[in-house]
């Protein structure tokens, strides 16, 4: 059989890809990360881990919205779903 290896299901799903990265950075199982989890209070991401998350989003997802509002973003109380909605546009393009 030739050709590229099949992509894992999450490779084409921006939400799953986002959660996959978040799980790796927070050192948690993907199943334990819920949309309502707060990135600082519940996932215990410190500013170093948040920086890793920003780079992950920049590198792996089409995150145009990160250009705006990052300076003044309040991270306290921010949930996984809110962060995703804020940074990932509707018409997302997954980077190869």
């Amino acid at each position, binding site marked *: 059989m030739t050709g590229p290896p099949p992509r894992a299901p999450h490779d084409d799903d921006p939400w799953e890809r986002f959660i996959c990265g978040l799980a790796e950075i927070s050192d948690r199982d993907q199943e334990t990360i819920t949309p309502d989890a707060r990135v*600082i209070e519940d996932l*215990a*991401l*410190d*500013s*170093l*881990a*948040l*920086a*890793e*998350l*920003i*780079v*992950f989003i*920049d*590198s792996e997802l089409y995150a145009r919205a*990160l*250009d*705006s509002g*990052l*300076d003044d*973003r*309040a*991270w*306290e109380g921010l949930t996984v779903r809110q962060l995703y909605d804020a940074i990932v546009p509707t018409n997302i393009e997954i980077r190869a």
Partner: protein
Amino acid sequence: MPDPVTPANLTSPHAGHDTFIAPALTSRHVRLTPLTPADYGMLQMEEATTGLGLRWRYRGMTPSPDQWVRMIWDGVLAQFLVVTRKSERPLGLVLVYRANMQDQFAYLGAARFGAHARSPLMILGLALFVEYVFTCWPFHKLYLETPEYNYEQFAKSIQRYVKLEGRFHDHSYYGGRRWDQLVLALYRSTWRTEAERLLRPEVTNHSPTSLKVTMPPSKRDQPG
């Protein structure tokens, strides 16, 4: 047969390459800008009027203006402000100091200004700076000295990058108790494997967006 380990190929991932690659001072979100006298007032106010003055180098002391200027450059090899690209707002200060060129180590310092305590952008600026330092000088490792009350905020995630190599027990006093002083070490080899977690590819000197200057053949052909 592998290449012999020489100072040249220990010092840079670009050693042996034919291009001069300038370290990036700008990433998508932040920029490193040199500290100038125009910044002194802002920096002194940050140190004197926020928690930074207690947590960091002066530990509550307020040097005279002349003394303060001398102290902020004492032993410094390189020093930059980290500012946001969008608003040019200062986020913090990064510096490398007490460089030992014979044994190839130096000390890394970073201070985040109080209003941005949770902002991850300062970390992105620090990552740019570490890349800059390892590109410009052949340091084997960079030490970070920190009281344990500053370490706690990073204790979990920083372990990927640094090794705890020293602990001075009950070293310093603050707030009615004594605190340990920790010495962390960031190795060049560790940075090379982990930097991509904090730097996008275009700022790690491997991308066309970095300034590249091709050496003329006459220089390129000269032996080591």
